[in-house]
Protein backbone atom coordinates (compact mmCIF):
# COMPACT_ATOMS: atom_id res chain seq x y z
CA UNK A 1 0.00 0.00 0.00
CA UNK A 2 1.33 3.36 -0.80
CA UNK A 3 0.64 6.97 -1.43
CA UNK A 4 1.27 6.31 -5.09
CA UNK A 5 -2.02 4.51 -5.35
CA UNK A 6 -3.78 7.51 -4.03
CA UNK A 7 -2.29 9.88 -6.52
CA UNK A 8 -3.25 7.48 -9.26
CA UNK A 9 -6.79 7.50 -8.04
CA UNK A 10 -6.87 11.25 -7.71
CA UNK A 11 -5.71 11.68 -11.25
CA UNK A 12 -8.62 9.60 -12.46
CA UNK A 13 -11.70 10.97 -14.09
CA UNK A 14 -13.39 13.14 -11.52
CA UNK A 15 -17.00 13.83 -12.32
CA UNK A 16 -17.01 17.32 -10.93
CA UNK A 17 -18.40 20.56 -12.27
CA UNK A 18 -15.21 22.31 -11.23
CA UNK A 19 -13.17 20.50 -13.84
CA UNK A 20 -15.62 21.35 -16.55
CA UNK A 21 -15.57 25.03 -15.73
CA UNK A 22 -11.78 25.08 -15.79
CA UNK A 23 -11.97 23.29 -19.13
CA UNK A 24 -14.07 26.07 -20.62
CA UNK A 25 -11.60 28.76 -19.64
CA UNK A 26 -8.76 26.66 -21.05
CA UNK A 27 -10.56 26.41 -24.35
CA UNK A 28 -10.22 30.14 -24.80
CA UNK A 29 -6.90 30.75 -23.13
CA UNK A 30 -4.98 27.88 -24.73
CA UNK A 31 -5.54 29.02 -28.32
CA UNK A 32 -4.63 32.56 -27.29
CA UNK A 33 -1.35 31.36 -25.80
CA UNK A 34 -0.69 29.34 -28.94
CA UNK A 35 -1.28 32.47 -30.97
CA UNK A 36 1.15 34.54 -28.93
CA UNK A 37 3.79 31.82 -29.08
CA UNK A 38 3.43 31.34 -32.82
CA UNK A 39 3.58 35.05 -33.56
CA UNK A 40 6.67 35.42 -31.39
CA UNK A 41 8.37 32.52 -33.14
CA UNK A 42 7.49 34.04 -36.47
CA UNK A 43 8.93 37.40 -35.48
CA UNK A 44 12.13 35.80 -34.22
CA UNK A 45 12.43 33.76 -37.41
CA UNK A 46 11.91 36.88 -39.48
CA UNK A 47 14.70 38.68 -37.60
CA UNK A 48 17.03 35.73 -37.72
CA UNK A 49 16.34 34.73 -41.30
CA UNK A 50 18.83 35.72 -43.96
CA UNK A 51 15.97 36.17 -46.43
CA UNK A 52 15.01 39.60 -47.70
CA UNK A 53 12.13 41.16 -45.89
CA UNK A 54 9.76 41.07 -48.84
CA UNK A 55 10.37 37.35 -49.20
CA UNK A 56 9.84 36.56 -45.55
CA UNK A 57 7.82 39.36 -44.04
CA UNK A 58 7.62 39.42 -40.27
CA UNK A 59 4.45 40.05 -38.29
CA UNK A 60 5.16 43.77 -38.30
CA UNK A 61 5.31 43.99 -42.10
CA UNK A 62 2.10 42.03 -42.39
CA UNK A 63 0.36 44.09 -39.75
CA UNK A 64 1.47 47.21 -41.61
CA UNK A 65 -0.51 45.96 -44.59
CA UNK A 66 -3.67 45.72 -42.57
CA UNK A 67 -4.77 49.38 -42.20
CA UNK A 68 -4.57 49.91 -45.94
CA UNK A 69 -6.80 46.94 -46.70
CA UNK A 70 -9.16 47.79 -43.88
CA UNK A 71 -9.37 51.43 -44.91
CA UNK A 72 -10.86 50.81 -48.34
CA UNK A 73 -13.05 48.04 -46.98
CA UNK A 74 -11.61 45.48 -49.37
CA UNK A 75 -10.65 42.99 -46.74
CA UNK A 76 -13.83 43.10 -44.72
CA UNK A 77 -16.07 42.91 -47.74
CA UNK A 78 -14.01 40.07 -49.20
CA UNK A 79 -14.24 38.12 -45.93
CA UNK A 80 -17.95 38.88 -45.71
CA UNK A 81 -18.56 37.75 -49.27
CA UNK A 82 -16.58 34.55 -48.91
CA UNK A 83 -18.03 33.70 -45.55
CA UNK A 84 -21.55 34.20 -46.80
CA UNK A 85 -20.91 32.05 -49.84
CA UNK A 86 -19.18 29.36 -47.82
CA UNK A 87 -21.86 29.18 -45.14
CA UNK A 88 -24.81 29.23 -47.50
CA UNK A 89 -23.10 26.83 -49.88
CA UNK A 90 -22.24 24.53 -47.00
CA UNK A 91 -25.84 24.59 -45.81
CA UNK A 92 -27.03 23.62 -49.27
CA UNK A 93 -24.38 20.92 -49.46
CA UNK A 94 -25.59 19.44 -46.17
CA UNK A 95 -29.19 19.51 -47.36
CA UNK A 96 -28.28 17.73 -50.59
CA UNK A 97 -25.68 15.33 -49.22
CA UNK A 98 -27.69 14.02 -46.29
CA UNK A 99 -30.57 12.49 -48.26
CA UNK A 100 -28.11 11.34 -50.91
CA UNK A 101 -26.06 9.50 -48.30
CA UNK A 102 -29.20 7.94 -46.85
CA UNK A 103 -30.24 6.75 -50.29
CA UNK A 104 -26.85 5.21 -50.86
CA UNK A 105 -26.90 3.59 -47.43
CA UNK A 106 -30.30 2.01 -48.01
CA UNK A 107 -29.96 0.93 -51.62
CA UNK A 108 -27.01 -1.48 -51.67
CA UNK A 109 -26.89 -1.67 -55.46
CA UNK A 110 -26.89 2.10 -55.80
CA UNK A 111 -24.08 2.27 -53.29
CA UNK A 112 -22.06 -0.33 -55.13
CA UNK A 113 -22.62 1.54 -58.36
CA UNK A 114 -22.17 5.13 -57.23
CA UNK A 115 -20.22 4.81 -53.99
CA UNK A 116 -16.79 4.53 -55.60
CA UNK A 117 -17.69 7.40 -57.90
CA UNK A 118 -18.54 9.61 -54.94
CA UNK A 119 -15.17 8.83 -53.38
CA UNK A 120 -13.50 9.50 -56.70
CA UNK A 121 -15.25 12.86 -57.03
CA UNK A 122 -13.71 13.82 -53.72
CA UNK A 123 -10.25 13.63 -55.26
CA UNK A 124 -11.14 15.71 -58.31
CA UNK A 125 -9.59 19.16 -57.90
CA UNK A 126 -12.11 21.97 -57.85
CA UNK A 127 -10.63 23.82 -60.79
CA UNK A 128 -11.56 20.83 -62.95
CA UNK A 129 -15.16 21.91 -62.64
CA UNK A 130 -14.53 25.56 -63.48
CA UNK A 131 -14.70 25.36 -67.29
CA UNK A 132 -17.89 23.32 -67.24
CA UNK A 133 -19.49 25.52 -64.60
CA UNK A 134 -18.70 28.71 -66.48
CA UNK A 135 -20.06 27.32 -69.73
CA UNK A 136 -23.27 26.27 -68.00
CA UNK A 137 -23.85 29.21 -65.70
CA UNK A 138 -21.70 32.00 -67.01
CA UNK A 139 -20.19 34.43 -64.57
CA UNK A 140 -22.75 34.19 -61.86
CA UNK A 141 -22.78 33.11 -58.27
CA UNK A 142 -24.28 29.88 -59.61
CA UNK A 143 -20.87 29.01 -61.03
CA UNK A 144 -19.17 29.60 -57.72
CA UNK A 145 -21.77 27.60 -55.85
CA UNK A 146 -21.50 24.75 -58.36
CA UNK A 147 -17.77 24.44 -57.78
CA UNK A 148 -18.27 24.71 -54.04
CA UNK A 149 -21.05 22.13 -53.93
CA UNK A 150 -19.22 19.64 -56.09
CA UNK A 151 -16.33 19.97 -53.66
CA UNK A 152 -18.30 19.64 -50.43
CA UNK A 153 -21.11 17.21 -51.23
CA UNK A 154 -19.06 14.04 -51.87
CA UNK A 155 -17.16 14.59 -48.67
CA UNK A 156 -20.29 14.98 -46.55
CA UNK A 157 -21.85 11.95 -48.23
CA UNK A 158 -18.81 9.87 -47.35
CA UNK A 159 -18.79 11.18 -43.79
CA UNK A 160 -22.40 10.25 -43.18
CA UNK A 161 -21.98 6.91 -44.93
CA UNK A 162 -19.09 5.90 -42.73
CA UNK A 163 -21.02 7.14 -39.70
CA UNK A 164 -23.91 4.89 -40.71
CA UNK A 165 -21.59 1.95 -41.37
CA UNK A 166 -20.31 2.14 -37.83
CA UNK A 167 -23.77 1.89 -36.25
CA UNK A 168 -23.90 -1.25 -34.10
CA UNK A 169 -26.17 -3.87 -35.70
CA UNK A 170 -28.17 -4.12 -32.48
CA UNK A 171 -29.72 -0.68 -33.07
CA UNK A 172 -31.08 -1.82 -36.40
CA UNK A 173 -32.47 -4.91 -34.72
CA UNK A 174 -34.12 -2.67 -32.16
CA UNK A 175 -35.71 -0.57 -34.88
CA UNK A 176 -37.14 -3.64 -36.55
CA UNK A 177 -38.49 -4.93 -33.29
CA UNK A 178 -40.10 -1.61 -32.45
CA UNK A 179 -41.79 -1.76 -35.85
CA UNK A 180 -40.18 1.40 -37.17
CA UNK A 181 -40.87 2.26 -40.78
CA UNK A 182 -37.80 3.00 -42.82
CA UNK A 183 -38.37 6.71 -42.39
CA UNK A 184 -38.77 6.34 -38.63
CA UNK A 185 -35.68 4.17 -38.47
CA UNK A 186 -33.69 6.86 -40.23
CA UNK A 187 -35.01 9.74 -38.15
CA UNK A 188 -35.02 8.13 -34.73
CA UNK A 189 -32.16 5.67 -34.88
CA UNK A 190 -29.88 5.91 -37.85
CA UNK A 191 -29.22 9.64 -37.95
CA UNK A 192 -28.71 10.13 -34.21
CA UNK A 193 -26.54 7.02 -34.01
CA UNK A 194 -24.40 8.17 -36.93
CA UNK A 195 -24.20 11.72 -35.60
CA UNK A 196 -20.67 11.70 -34.14
CA UNK A 197 -19.25 10.28 -37.38
CA UNK A 198 -21.46 12.62 -39.34
CA UNK A 199 -20.12 15.67 -37.52
CA UNK A 200 -16.59 14.52 -38.28
CA UNK A 201 -17.70 14.30 -41.93
CA UNK A 202 -19.25 17.75 -41.72
CA UNK A 203 -16.00 19.22 -40.49
CA UNK A 204 -14.16 17.74 -43.46
CA UNK A 205 -17.01 18.83 -45.72
CA UNK A 206 -16.67 22.36 -44.45
CA UNK A 207 -12.97 22.28 -45.25
CA UNK A 208 -13.73 21.06 -48.75
CA UNK A 209 -16.41 23.70 -49.18
CA UNK A 210 -14.11 26.51 -48.15
CA UNK A 211 -11.20 25.30 -50.25
CA UNK A 212 -13.38 24.78 -53.29
CA UNK A 213 -14.72 28.25 -52.79
CA UNK A 214 -11.20 29.64 -52.79
CA UNK A 215 -10.60 27.87 -56.12
CA UNK A 216 -13.87 29.16 -57.53
CA UNK A 217 -13.07 32.70 -56.48
CA UNK A 218 -10.00 32.64 -58.69
CA UNK A 219 -12.27 32.87 -61.73
CA UNK A 220 -12.93 36.53 -61.39
CA UNK A 221 -11.80 39.31 -59.14
CA UNK A 222 -14.53 41.80 -59.58
CA UNK A 223 -17.38 43.02 -61.68
CA UNK A 224 -20.58 41.05 -61.45
CA UNK A 225 -18.89 38.61 -59.12
CA UNK A 226 -18.07 40.10 -55.75
CA UNK A 227 -14.47 39.96 -54.62
CA UNK A 228 -13.77 37.09 -52.26
CA UNK A 229 -10.89 36.04 -50.08
CA UNK A 230 -9.71 33.60 -52.74
CA UNK A 231 -9.34 36.40 -55.27
CA UNK A 232 -7.41 38.43 -52.74
CA UNK A 233 -5.03 35.56 -52.14
CA UNK A 234 -4.46 35.07 -55.86
CA UNK A 235 -3.81 38.76 -56.28
CA UNK A 236 -1.17 38.64 -53.60
CA UNK A 237 0.47 35.72 -55.34
CA UNK A 238 0.32 37.29 -58.80
CA UNK A 239 2.02 40.43 -57.68
CA UNK A 240 4.49 38.60 -55.44
CA UNK A 241 3.06 40.63 -52.58
CA UNK A 242 3.95 38.23 -49.78
CA UNK A 243 2.71 40.41 -46.92
CA UNK A 244 -0.70 40.36 -48.60
CA UNK A 245 -0.51 36.59 -49.05
CA UNK A 246 0.37 36.14 -45.38
CA UNK A 247 -2.36 38.47 -44.29
CA UNK A 248 -4.95 36.53 -46.27
CA UNK A 249 -3.62 33.25 -44.88
CA UNK A 250 -3.98 34.65 -41.37
CA UNK A 251 -7.50 35.81 -42.08
CA UNK A 252 -8.46 32.39 -43.43
CA UNK A 253 -6.90 30.72 -40.40
CA UNK A 254 -8.77 33.09 -38.12
CA UNK A 255 -12.06 32.30 -39.81
CA UNK A 256 -11.24 28.60 -39.57
CA UNK A 257 -10.39 28.79 -35.89
CA UNK A 258 -13.54 30.74 -35.12
CA UNK A 259 -15.80 28.33 -37.01
CA UNK A 260 -14.11 25.44 -35.23
CA UNK A 261 -14.37 27.02 -31.77
CA UNK A 262 -17.89 28.35 -32.22
CA UNK A 263 -19.52 25.55 -34.20
CA UNK A 264 -17.83 22.22 -34.53
CA UNK A 265 -16.09 21.87 -31.19
CA UNK A 266 -19.16 22.69 -29.05
CA UNK A 267 -21.37 20.53 -31.27
CA UNK A 268 -19.04 17.60 -30.98
CA UNK A 269 -18.60 18.12 -27.25
CA UNK A 270 -22.35 18.12 -26.73
CA UNK A 271 -22.84 14.99 -28.82
CA UNK A 272 -20.17 13.09 -26.98
CA UNK A 273 -21.29 14.27 -23.56
CA UNK A 274 -24.83 13.14 -24.38
CA UNK A 275 -23.38 9.69 -24.90
CA UNK A 276 -21.22 9.75 -21.79
CA UNK A 277 -17.92 10.27 -23.61
CA UNK A 278 -15.35 13.02 -23.37
CA UNK A 279 -13.59 14.83 -26.15
CA UNK A 280 -10.32 16.05 -24.76
CA UNK A 281 -8.25 12.92 -24.55
CA UNK A 282 -8.50 13.10 -20.77
CA UNK A 283 -9.84 9.58 -20.73
CA UNK A 284 -6.53 7.91 -20.11
CA UNK A 285 -4.16 8.78 -17.31
Amino acid sequence: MSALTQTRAAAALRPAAVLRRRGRADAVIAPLITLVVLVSLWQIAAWASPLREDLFPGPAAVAAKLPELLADGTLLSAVGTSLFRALSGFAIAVLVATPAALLLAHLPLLRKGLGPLVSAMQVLPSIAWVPAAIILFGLSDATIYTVLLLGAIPSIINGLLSGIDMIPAQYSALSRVLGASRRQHIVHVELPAALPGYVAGLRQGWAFAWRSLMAAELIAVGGSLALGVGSLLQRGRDLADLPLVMLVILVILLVGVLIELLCFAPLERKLLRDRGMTRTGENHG
Partner: protein
Amino acid sequence: MGVQLNEVSLSYPGTGLVIDRLSARIEDGEFIAVLGASGCGKSSLLNLIAGLLAPTEGWLDVPDDGAAFMFQDSNLLPWLSAGRNVELALKLAGHPKDTRQARVDQLLELVQLGHAVHKKPHELSGGMRQRVALARALAQDRQVLLMDEPFAALDAITRDLLHEELRSLWEQTGKTIIFVTHNVREAIRLSGRILVLSSHPGRILETRRITEDLRRNPAQSAALADELTTILRKEQRKHERTDAN
Protein backbone atom coordinates in the same frame (compact mmCIF):
# COMPACT_ATOMS: atom_id res chain seq x y z
CA MET B 1 -52.40 -16.00 -32.84
CA GLY B 2 -49.72 -18.14 -31.31
CA VAL B 3 -46.30 -18.96 -32.66
CA GLN B 4 -45.50 -22.03 -34.68
CA LEU B 5 -42.05 -23.38 -35.56
CA ASN B 6 -41.79 -26.15 -38.10
CA GLU B 7 -38.53 -28.05 -38.54
CA VAL B 8 -36.62 -24.83 -38.08
CA SER B 9 -32.83 -25.01 -38.43
CA LEU B 10 -30.31 -22.25 -38.03
CA SER B 11 -26.60 -22.25 -38.66
CA TYR B 12 -24.06 -19.43 -38.40
CA PRO B 13 -21.16 -19.25 -40.85
CA GLY B 14 -18.39 -19.77 -38.30
CA THR B 15 -20.28 -21.85 -35.76
CA GLY B 16 -22.27 -24.33 -37.80
CA LEU B 17 -25.63 -25.76 -36.82
CA VAL B 18 -27.02 -24.09 -33.71
CA ILE B 19 -30.69 -25.03 -33.93
CA ASP B 20 -31.54 -28.35 -35.50
CA ARG B 21 -34.98 -29.08 -37.00
CA LEU B 22 -36.82 -27.63 -34.05
CA SER B 23 -40.62 -27.81 -34.11
CA ALA B 24 -42.91 -26.27 -31.52
CA ARG B 25 -46.36 -24.83 -31.26
CA ILE B 26 -47.01 -22.06 -28.76
CA GLU B 27 -50.66 -21.29 -28.24
CA ASP B 28 -52.12 -17.85 -28.03
CA GLY B 29 -51.88 -16.56 -24.47
CA GLU B 30 -49.35 -19.13 -23.29
CA PHE B 31 -46.59 -18.22 -20.86
CA ILE B 32 -43.51 -20.21 -21.90
CA ALA B 33 -40.12 -20.44 -20.21
CA VAL B 34 -37.06 -21.58 -22.14
CA LEU B 35 -34.22 -23.19 -20.21
CA GLY B 36 -30.87 -24.37 -21.51
CA ALA B 37 -27.14 -24.23 -21.04
CA SER B 38 -25.20 -21.08 -21.83
CA GLY B 39 -24.59 -20.93 -25.58
CA CYS B 40 -27.21 -23.52 -26.51
CA GLY B 41 -29.17 -21.24 -28.82
CA LYS B 42 -31.88 -19.63 -26.68
CA SER B 43 -31.21 -16.08 -27.84
CA SER B 44 -30.94 -17.32 -31.41
CA LEU B 45 -34.36 -18.92 -31.06
CA LEU B 46 -35.92 -15.65 -29.89
CA ASN B 47 -34.21 -13.83 -32.77
CA LEU B 48 -35.81 -16.28 -35.18
CA ILE B 49 -39.26 -15.74 -33.70
CA ALA B 50 -38.78 -11.96 -33.78
CA GLY B 51 -37.87 -12.17 -37.46
CA LEU B 52 -34.38 -10.77 -36.86
CA LEU B 53 -32.82 -13.92 -38.27
CA ALA B 54 -34.13 -16.08 -41.08
CA PRO B 55 -34.04 -19.85 -40.57
CA THR B 56 -31.56 -21.69 -42.74
CA GLU B 57 -34.23 -24.36 -43.17
CA GLY B 58 -37.85 -24.84 -42.18
CA TRP B 59 -40.43 -22.15 -41.63
CA LEU B 60 -42.17 -20.38 -38.84
CA ASP B 61 -45.38 -18.55 -38.36
CA VAL B 62 -45.73 -15.52 -36.11
CA PRO B 63 -48.45 -12.87 -35.84
CA ASP B 64 -48.47 -10.22 -38.52
CA ASP B 65 -47.51 -7.42 -36.18
CA GLY B 66 -44.34 -9.15 -35.02
CA ALA B 67 -43.33 -9.47 -31.41
CA ALA B 68 -42.11 -7.23 -28.63
CA PHE B 69 -38.56 -8.17 -27.72
CA MET B 70 -36.52 -7.48 -24.63
CA PHE B 71 -32.90 -8.13 -25.60
CA GLN B 72 -30.36 -9.93 -23.43
CA ASP B 73 -28.24 -6.80 -23.25
CA SER B 74 -30.48 -3.86 -22.54
CA ASN B 75 -29.80 -2.24 -25.96
CA LEU B 76 -30.90 1.24 -24.95
CA LEU B 77 -30.18 4.10 -27.33
CA PRO B 78 -27.39 6.00 -25.56
CA TRP B 79 -28.42 9.47 -26.75
CA LEU B 80 -31.93 9.17 -25.29
CA SER B 81 -32.85 9.44 -21.62
CA ALA B 82 -34.54 6.50 -19.95
CA GLY B 83 -37.92 8.16 -20.43
CA ARG B 84 -37.29 8.93 -24.09
CA ASN B 85 -36.14 5.37 -24.75
CA VAL B 86 -39.48 4.13 -23.51
CA GLU B 87 -41.32 6.89 -25.30
CA LEU B 88 -39.73 5.96 -28.61
CA ALA B 89 -41.32 2.51 -28.36
CA LEU B 90 -44.70 4.10 -27.68
CA LYS B 91 -44.28 6.51 -30.57
CA LEU B 92 -43.34 3.80 -33.02
CA ALA B 93 -46.28 1.74 -31.79
CA GLY B 94 -48.47 4.66 -32.81
CA HIS B 95 -49.48 6.06 -29.43
CA PRO B 96 -50.73 9.64 -29.76
CA LYS B 97 -48.41 12.28 -28.41
CA ASP B 98 -50.56 13.58 -25.58
CA THR B 99 -50.92 10.26 -23.78
CA ARG B 100 -47.33 9.16 -24.13
CA GLN B 101 -45.75 11.01 -21.23
CA ALA B 102 -48.25 9.65 -18.74
CA ARG B 103 -47.70 6.10 -20.02
CA VAL B 104 -43.91 6.53 -19.84
CA ASP B 105 -44.17 7.60 -16.20
CA GLN B 106 -46.49 4.72 -15.44
CA LEU B 107 -44.17 2.14 -17.04
CA LEU B 108 -41.07 3.49 -15.33
CA GLU B 109 -42.93 3.51 -12.00
CA LEU B 110 -43.81 -0.11 -12.65
CA VAL B 111 -40.11 -1.00 -12.87
CA GLN B 112 -39.28 1.19 -9.83
CA LEU B 113 -37.51 3.82 -11.89
CA GLY B 114 -39.87 6.76 -11.54
CA HIS B 115 -36.96 8.87 -10.31
CA ALA B 116 -34.70 8.10 -13.26
CA VAL B 117 -36.81 9.33 -16.19
CA HIS B 118 -34.29 11.95 -17.22
CA LYS B 119 -31.15 9.88 -16.78
CA LYS B 120 -29.12 8.89 -19.81
CA PRO B 121 -28.24 5.18 -20.09
CA HIS B 122 -24.61 5.83 -19.15
CA GLU B 123 -25.81 7.32 -15.86
CA LEU B 124 -27.75 4.21 -14.94
CA SER B 125 -26.56 1.09 -13.16
CA GLY B 126 -26.68 -2.28 -14.95
CA GLY B 127 -29.88 -3.37 -13.27
CA MET B 128 -31.52 -0.01 -13.91
CA ARG B 129 -30.73 -0.31 -17.61
CA GLN B 130 -32.30 -3.73 -17.68
CA ARG B 131 -35.42 -2.40 -16.06
CA VAL B 132 -35.69 0.43 -18.58
CA ALA B 133 -35.42 -2.21 -21.31
CA LEU B 134 -38.23 -4.11 -19.62
CA ALA B 135 -40.40 -1.00 -19.52
CA ARG B 136 -39.68 -0.46 -23.20
CA ALA B 137 -40.65 -4.02 -24.08
CA LEU B 138 -43.93 -3.56 -22.23
CA ALA B 139 -44.49 -0.27 -24.01
CA GLN B 140 -44.54 -2.04 -27.35
CA ASP B 141 -47.81 -3.65 -26.41
CA ARG B 142 -47.75 -6.54 -28.89
CA GLN B 143 -49.60 -9.80 -28.52
CA VAL B 144 -46.34 -11.73 -28.37
CA LEU B 145 -43.67 -10.72 -25.85
CA LEU B 146 -40.17 -12.21 -26.09
CA MET B 147 -37.85 -11.72 -23.12
CA ASP B 148 -34.22 -12.76 -22.98
CA GLU B 149 -33.18 -13.19 -19.34
CA PRO B 150 -35.18 -10.15 -18.26
CA PHE B 151 -34.27 -10.31 -14.57
CA ALA B 152 -30.67 -11.51 -14.69
CA ALA B 153 -29.13 -8.27 -13.40
CA LEU B 154 -31.69 -7.65 -10.64
CA ASP B 155 -31.53 -8.20 -6.91
CA ALA B 156 -33.88 -10.72 -5.39
CA ILE B 157 -36.31 -8.16 -4.00
CA THR B 158 -36.75 -6.17 -7.16
CA ARG B 159 -36.99 -9.42 -9.06
CA ASP B 160 -39.82 -10.70 -6.84
CA LEU B 161 -41.67 -7.48 -7.34
CA LEU B 162 -41.31 -7.61 -11.10
CA HIS B 163 -42.31 -11.27 -11.18
CA GLU B 164 -45.60 -10.30 -9.64
CA GLU B 165 -46.06 -7.42 -12.02
CA LEU B 166 -45.33 -9.63 -15.03
CA ARG B 167 -47.75 -12.33 -13.85
CA SER B 168 -50.56 -9.87 -13.30
CA LEU B 169 -49.88 -8.20 -16.63
CA TRP B 170 -50.10 -11.58 -18.31
CA GLU B 171 -53.33 -12.42 -16.50
CA GLN B 172 -54.87 -9.11 -17.45
CA THR B 173 -53.80 -8.94 -21.08
CA GLY B 174 -53.57 -12.58 -22.13
CA LYS B 175 -50.34 -11.93 -23.99
CA THR B 176 -48.25 -14.78 -25.37
CA ILE B 177 -45.01 -14.56 -23.40
CA ILE B 178 -41.85 -16.49 -24.22
CA PHE B 179 -39.01 -15.87 -21.83
CA VAL B 180 -35.52 -17.21 -21.49
CA THR B 181 -34.09 -17.70 -18.02
CA HIS B 182 -31.29 -19.47 -16.22
CA ASN B 183 -33.24 -19.66 -13.04
CA VAL B 184 -35.20 -22.91 -12.83
CA ARG B 185 -37.26 -21.65 -9.89
CA GLU B 186 -38.13 -18.49 -11.80
CA ALA B 187 -39.32 -20.64 -14.70
CA ILE B 188 -41.54 -22.72 -12.45
CA ARG B 189 -42.86 -19.70 -10.64
CA LEU B 190 -43.89 -17.78 -13.74
CA SER B 191 -44.54 -20.00 -16.71
CA GLY B 192 -47.27 -22.40 -17.80
CA ARG B 193 -44.90 -24.55 -19.79
CA ILE B 194 -41.13 -25.03 -19.71
CA LEU B 195 -39.08 -25.96 -22.74
CA VAL B 196 -35.62 -27.34 -22.03
CA LEU B 197 -33.18 -27.01 -24.91
CA SER B 198 -30.25 -29.28 -25.55
CA SER B 199 -27.05 -27.83 -26.88
CA HIS B 200 -24.87 -28.51 -29.92
CA PRO B 201 -27.24 -28.51 -31.71
CA GLY B 202 -30.28 -27.03 -30.00
CA ARG B 203 -33.32 -29.30 -29.91
CA ILE B 204 -36.19 -29.54 -27.47
CA LEU B 205 -35.02 -31.95 -24.82
CA GLU B 206 -38.01 -31.78 -22.51
CA THR B 207 -41.37 -30.06 -22.24
CA ARG B 208 -43.07 -29.67 -18.87
CA ARG B 209 -46.47 -28.19 -18.10
CA ILE B 210 -46.71 -26.28 -14.84
CA THR B 211 -50.12 -26.40 -13.26
CA GLU B 212 -51.38 -23.90 -10.68
CA ASP B 213 -51.43 -26.72 -8.15
CA LEU B 214 -47.81 -27.56 -8.71
CA ARG B 215 -46.83 -23.92 -8.49
CA ARG B 216 -48.62 -23.54 -5.12
CA ASN B 217 -47.05 -26.64 -3.67
CA PRO B 218 -43.51 -25.85 -2.44
CA ALA B 219 -42.45 -29.48 -2.16
CA GLN B 220 -43.64 -30.38 -5.63
CA SER B 221 -42.04 -27.25 -7.08
CA ALA B 222 -38.75 -28.06 -5.42
CA ALA B 223 -38.90 -31.59 -6.75
CA LEU B 224 -39.54 -30.37 -10.27
CA ALA B 225 -36.71 -27.86 -9.95
CA ASP B 226 -34.38 -30.64 -8.88
CA GLU B 227 -35.56 -32.83 -11.72
CA LEU B 228 -35.00 -30.11 -14.33
CA THR B 229 -31.59 -29.34 -12.90
CA THR B 230 -30.68 -32.99 -13.15
CA ILE B 231 -31.80 -33.09 -16.77
CA LEU B 232 -29.69 -30.05 -17.54
CA ARG B 233 -26.72 -31.47 -15.70
CA LYS B 234 -26.97 -34.78 -17.54
CA GLU B 235 -27.07 -32.98 -20.86
CA GLN B 236 -23.97 -30.99 -19.90
CA ARG B 237 -22.12 -34.16 -18.82
CA LYS B 238 -22.90 -35.82 -22.12
CA HIS B 239 -21.10 -32.96 -23.82
CA GLU B 240 -18.11 -33.09 -21.59
CA ARG B 241 -17.80 -36.74 -22.52
CA THR B 242 -18.19 -36.06 -26.25
CA ASP B 243 -15.75 -33.17 -26.02
CA ALA B 244 -13.17 -35.40 -24.39
CA ASN B 245 -13.40 -37.97 -27.20
